[in-house]
């Protein structure tokens, strides 16, 4: 009897929650439809095939011009998001792993410096750091005609960083360089900001992973005559990796989500392009739906990978 009563109560709760949700949804949708009609905005994704009419500073892996469609512009934005995220993930892993190992190193000076780095990076908002790097590049570097040349053929200027490629060296033409590999100030600031910020979090994960391996393992390795370095490489790190990988993947996901801060310094990533499109067309709902769908797909793919990895470890 008591059990039936409980069951009925549970069903009633759930029905109430569902009804409330549907009610709110119906209210919002009907308001939205009325508003869209009043503002004469046609809903739907047909606008994607219209001409974009704006230029994009950088379009990796493809050609893009203002005469292309909004859809093409979004694809360029997505390519830019992937470009900065992948480069960021690789560099942040290398830097973060190095700093993480410094945090457990026997050298006290190295340890203290890495600790200070991690504390400072983690306690300042990424957005402030991005503004800082962008200001540093555009305000303190000289204009292209007076560009710094730290290495032969490599130029640092407030219009970007230029590297020579085989068969194509950067040459000064008028007020800017052409040829070679050009890195825009926006991309450079975003990449440096994402890498140095995320590396601090990765360093803490690596440190925790190394410390999670029991001391006996290390002592046994020393007893076998392994040096500190060899013991770390062959005994401690392989075991630490189990602890490191799950939080590491969530840092990769964070980095990818944080790359959306590109909009604040004008790097044309997906969010920044979608924002431009929303401002031009008024298709706010569709634009935000596209951003959210893309990021949810990335998040879900990474969590599917993580579950697969965790299952494989067991």
């Amino acid at each position, binding site marked *: 009897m008591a059990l039936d009563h409980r069951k009925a109560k*549970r069903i009633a*709760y*759930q*029905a109430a*929650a*569902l009804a409330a*949700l549907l009610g709110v949804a119906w209210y*919002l949708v009907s*308001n*939205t439809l*009325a*508003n*869209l009609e*009043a503002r004469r905005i046609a809903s739907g994704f047909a606008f994607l095939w219209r001409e974009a009419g704006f230029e994009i500073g950088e379009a990796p892996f493809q050609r893009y011009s203002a005469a292309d469609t909004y859809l093409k512009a979004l694809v360029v934005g997505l390519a830019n998001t992937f470009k900065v995220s992948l480069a960021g993930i690789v560099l942040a892993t290398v830097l973060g792993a190095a700093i993480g190992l410094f945090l457990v190193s*026997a*050298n*006290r*000076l*190295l340890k203290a*410096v890495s600790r200070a780095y991690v*504390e*400072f990076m*983690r*306690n*300042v*908002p*990424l*957005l*402030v*750091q991005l*503004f*800082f790097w*962008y*200001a*540093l590049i*555009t*305000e*303190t570097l000289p204009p292209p005609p007076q560009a710094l040349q730290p290495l032969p053929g490599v130029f640092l200027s407030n219009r970007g960083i230029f590297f020579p490629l085989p068969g194509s060296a950067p040459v000064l033409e008028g007020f800017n360089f052409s040829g070679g590999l050009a890195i825009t100030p926006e991309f450079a600031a975003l990449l440096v900001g994402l890498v140095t910020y995320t590396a601090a979090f990765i360093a803490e994960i690596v440190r925790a992973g190394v410390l999670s391996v029991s001391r006996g393992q290390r002592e046994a390795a020393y007893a076998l005559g392994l040096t500190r370095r060899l013991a770390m490489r062959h005994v401690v790190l392989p075991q630490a990796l189990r602890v490191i990988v799950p939080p590491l993947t969530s840092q990769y996901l964070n980095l990818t*989500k*944080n790359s*959306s*801060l590109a*909009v*604040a310094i004008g790097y044309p990533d997906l*969010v920044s392009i979608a*924002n431009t499109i*929303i401002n031009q067309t008024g298709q*706010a*709902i569709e634009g*935000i739906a596209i*951003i*959210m769908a893309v*990021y*949810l797909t990335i*998040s*879900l793919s990474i969590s599917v990978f993580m579950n697969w990895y965790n299952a494989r470890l067991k």
Partner: protein
Amino acid sequence: MNRLLSAVLGVVIAFLAWRFIDWALLQAVWQPDSKACRAVQGACWGFIAEKHRFILFGTYPYEQHWRPALASILLVLLWALSAWRIFWRWWLVLLWLAGLSVIGILMWGGVLGLPYVENERWGGLILTLLLSTFGIALAFPLSILLALGRRSGMPVIQALCVGFIELVRGVPLISILFMASVMLPLFLPAGVSIDKLLRAQIALILFAAAYLAEVVRGGLQAIPKEQYEAADAVGLTYWQKTGTVILPQALRIAVPPLVNTIIGFFKDTSLVVIIGLFDLLQTIKVSLQDPAWSGYGVEAYLFAALVYFAFCFAMSLYSRRLERR
């Protein structure tokens, strides 16, 4: 080997430190004099000296700046009091309500001889502090409900909670802020509008709730099964069990990770600059647009970094002290 490394590293650090001190202190200009700044190679702290009132208080009426200053100090005091375990009593809630009312009176005014200041003119540090405070204060109860819902065992409620939490955690905060600034007006009936500050605040509350909910869930999961069974055996109802047995223990366990989430959230409130709210970063950006003072972004953002660092580092020291217990 170790000594050699220390020596090389020591030299490199000493060189960098000397370069930085030379730029930031020895060659720097401290007076608010833009001509003097242009003449030297060092840092121009004169920019901060000139603009600090605007950076800290935004467009709040100049003669009334003591009001947001006092409100900021009060707010920080409330937070500092709440950090002490001896104050974790029910009357802390009353203290907060009283404190927030005083802050509201100070900021809005219109009574006690204080001129009225509409919230469009609030800006700078107090805006950052208020967005964080109300974000956490309102997200926290919501997050407890979400965490309880996620563990309720009722399929429909569970699915709704999981769906909300994973949706919010899966997308960047900036997309939620965009949603609040451009989509929310479409959701409301014609003629009803809510101001920009409130819209951003709603977005921040929903965002924080999803992240806090996962931390609270972690605390709930750490409670041994016997606690639930014992509470059931005594005949407590669900809400009695949750309110008097489970939550008090779960939240205590969850305090250190909660503080870490709060630090992250405090940093994330800086994103409101992207939708044009007048927080600490926006006042800095606007100050940099003054032609007499353009080109001092490095100094300006170092200053912003120090302000944020002071708050976040204090909180993270606190969270570390809690963890050590």
